[in-house]
């Protein structure tokens, strides 16, 4: 079947969205942009194709198989992918031990690594078995890294295999795993995933059929900071501003104002009734108030980016933060901590500071009009969403504010819609 793809090469994450001929979303893929944009685009694309096939499968078996079984298959597939990457990581670490450590240390190091990987694999399997697994980052690097860190701390022995040695091995090898174009396609792991859930007959045949469907990519459009890296001709490159405008319009047709807070820039966009951008404002060279700010804060606090919002939402009173400067954020955070302020209250203040900055851009672009749509990665953060809702209400009154759970894909979605135009 014919399909089109939009790829948004952002500064922190790369997203891909595949549409079918009726402009329905068929698949979505996301990965961290790493330092290799080409690879990030390839990974996001292949992931989008995987989810596209799962969606085809869903359509194929609609009414005959319940969602729970499909979800179980999807998670089994994800588990197979993860185990595959873990095996590759372990191989590389073993090679690294042989290369860089003395004879006497090799054995104890390899034993420690074996113990660690056994545990990580077991944890992954348990996660799969748990119908409500705890939330965590979707990226292999983050998930594997945090498990590695935690277990290394437990088993490290200051007299022999130290924590630093173990972590050093991980640091050296994770980049290679990430930068190798691993086989992560649908056909590579669906068989094992199917076995894992007991090869239910009501689904097995459909899986075979879906795996054989030819997906013909009729057109592709790229956007985002790394768009110049995409092997597309110039006509197939669109600015993020246009893509977010069109994507937001397609998600919420009543949209007139769009705010996109991405990794390194924030854009306030006005669109007309057809989703065509009529004006926009963008932050200047300073990335204050962008997603990256939250990244720095998470690093400062030594927690995951996805944990910031939930933590800030537990605030009792929002601390007033004066500086939206990304570089000063850490200093301000430490100062507030030293004054005895609570972590969650400071975090709430930091989220509000970002949004205050975005309010200025919105004002510059002409204001906020009904309906207002919040897009980009930061829209996943509940504390930022709450702060934005409050400030929009304070400044512009009763405006309906849309936030899609797929907001992070808005740019790629818009690009895919442009690709659909190109193809037709």
């Amino acid at each position, binding site marked *: 079947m014919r399909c089109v793809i939009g790829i948004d090469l952002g500064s922190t994450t790369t997203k891909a969205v595949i549409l079918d001929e009726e402009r329905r979303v068929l698949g979505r893929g996301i990965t961290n942009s790493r330092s290799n944009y080409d690879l990030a685009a390839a990974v996001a694309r292949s992931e989008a194709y995987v989810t596209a096939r799962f969606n085809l499968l869903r359509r194929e078996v609609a009414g005959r198989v319940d969602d729970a079984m499909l979800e179980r298959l999807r998670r089994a597939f994800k588990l197979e992918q993860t185990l595959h990457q873990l095996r590759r990581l372990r191989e590389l670490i073993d090679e690294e031990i042989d290369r860089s450590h003395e004879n006497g240390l090799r054995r104890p190091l390899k034993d420690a690594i074996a113990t660690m990987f056994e545990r990580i694999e077991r944890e992954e399997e348990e996660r799969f078995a748990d119908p409500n697994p705890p939330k965590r980052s979707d990226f292999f690097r983050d998930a594997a890294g945090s498990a590695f860190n935690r277990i290394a701390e437990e088993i490290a022995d200051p007299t022999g295999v130290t924590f630093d040695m173990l972590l050093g091995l991980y640091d050296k090898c994770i980049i290679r795993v990430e930068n190798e174009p691993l086989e992560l396609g649908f056909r590579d792991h669906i068989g094992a995933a199917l076995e894992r859930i007991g090869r239910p007959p009501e689904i097995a045949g459909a899986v075979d059929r879906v795996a054989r469907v030819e997906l013909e990519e009729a057109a592709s459009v790229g956007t985002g900071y790394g768009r110049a890296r995409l092997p597309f001709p110039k006509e197939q490159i669109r*600015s993020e501003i*246009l893509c977010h405008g069109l994507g937001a319009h397609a998600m919420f047709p009543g949209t007139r104002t769009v705010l996109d807070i991405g990794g390194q820039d924030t854009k306030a966009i006005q669109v007309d009734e057809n989703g*065509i*951008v*009529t004006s*926009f404002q*963008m932050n200047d*060279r300073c990335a204050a108030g962008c997603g990256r700010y939250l990244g720095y804060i998470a690093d400062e606090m030594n927690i995951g980016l996805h944990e910031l919002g939930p933590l800030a939402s537990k605030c009792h009173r929002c601390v007033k933060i004066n500086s939206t400067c990304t570089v000063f954020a850490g200093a301000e955070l430490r100062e507030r901590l030293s004054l005895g302020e609570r972590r969650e209250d400071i975090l709430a203040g930091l989220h509000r500071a970002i949004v205050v900055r975005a309010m200025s851009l919105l004002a*510059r672009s002409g204001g906020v009009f009904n309906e207002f749509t919040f897009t980009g990665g930061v829209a996943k953060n509940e504390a930022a969403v709450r702060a934005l809702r409050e400030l929009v209400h304070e400044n512009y009154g009763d405006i309906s504010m849309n936030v899609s759970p797929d907001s992070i894909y808005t740019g790629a979605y818009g690009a895919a819609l442009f690709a659909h135009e190109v193809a037709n």
Partner: protein
Amino acid sequence: MSDVQKDRSMVLQKQMIARHFERLEKAPETGEPVVYTFVPGNLTELIRSFGALPVLPEINALQSGMRKRSGDFINEAEKSGHSEDVCTYVKCDIGMLKSGNIGPTGTRLPKPDLLLLSYTGCYTFMKWFELLREEYDCPTVFFQVPYQGDGAIEPQHKEYMVKQLRDEVIPALEKVTGKKYDEDRLKEMLALSAQAEEDLVAVLQSAKNKPSPIDAYFGAVYYVGPIFSAFRGTPEGVEYYKELRREVEQRVAEGRGPITPDGPLDDQKYRIVVEGPPNWTHFRDFWRMFAEEGAVVVASTYTKVGGVYDFGFRHDPNDPLGTLAEYCAGCYTNINLPGRIAMIERYIRDYDADGFIINSVKSCNSFSAGQLMMVREIERRTGIPGGFIESDLVDPRYFSAANIKNRLESYFQMIDARRMGVSA
């Protein structure tokens, strides 16, 4: 053949400027008096009628910017205590002074015999000359040009300025040059000015053609060089503009566009009006960002900072002091916000522009205050979308290429989308 002709005006300008700077360097030996003054509202004919040579510090600063030397000069000025946020023309000039006063062409600049401050809309100019007066300990005269607060030059404004010229400026020039005021000489020079102005206007208005034979911002910056600096009222100036006009008219006859850093721009996709000074440190990169997209600038306000001639003003030899007063009061920087808006609106209509872009300069508040308000008002009046980018005059630290490119690309794509949206 045509390429050779094109070169001739450039060669002429280069020679004129080189000769002027050589004369300046030798001034301490030849005894030619030197007057420092500013571009907006400059009294070049009057200064030269006394046999004195003008030096224009902003031009030195912008030339240093184009030659990639401003960064070091700004550094030097900051070392002596000038803040990061101060006008970068000032710091570049002060830095150049502290580094031995070697001008942009590599020759030493002489000390001023007189600082002639003609005030047209920029308070920083006053502080700048205060700093230079401190340095050089020389006479300073302040020619106060009333701001066009109500959008017009009133008769009493003119009287007030003529009186100042008679009672303060001319006596000061007589004193430092040792020569009597020669009104006949001034009249002759004003007649030459009017001739050159006539040709300059023909060149600037040639942009009404499609394709436009000139770029009225990036290209025109060179065209206004002689008339804004030391050559108004001189035979060389007249010759230069005659030659330039001939070359441009030839391009019109041949249906060709201007030469850009990427070659000829005959295929012009967007006709743009630009407000605000260019960025000088990345001038060619900045121009290239327009040229790559097929955008030609058909009119700009910046090319009017040293005099607005295209709406009919010419220096009038029959009213020598009165015409100088009117000229000074009519410069772009002396026009109030409604006047600036009306001018851009008129350019958009007269030159059949697709859009207008404001380059907002970080370190120049007198230029940038009110610019966002201007965008909205012009959009409202013309229905044409405005673009907004931010850079600086000569501080290389303020130019974020990726950010500016992103905004420009988005802006041009927005025009495309609107065109398609309207035609569909």
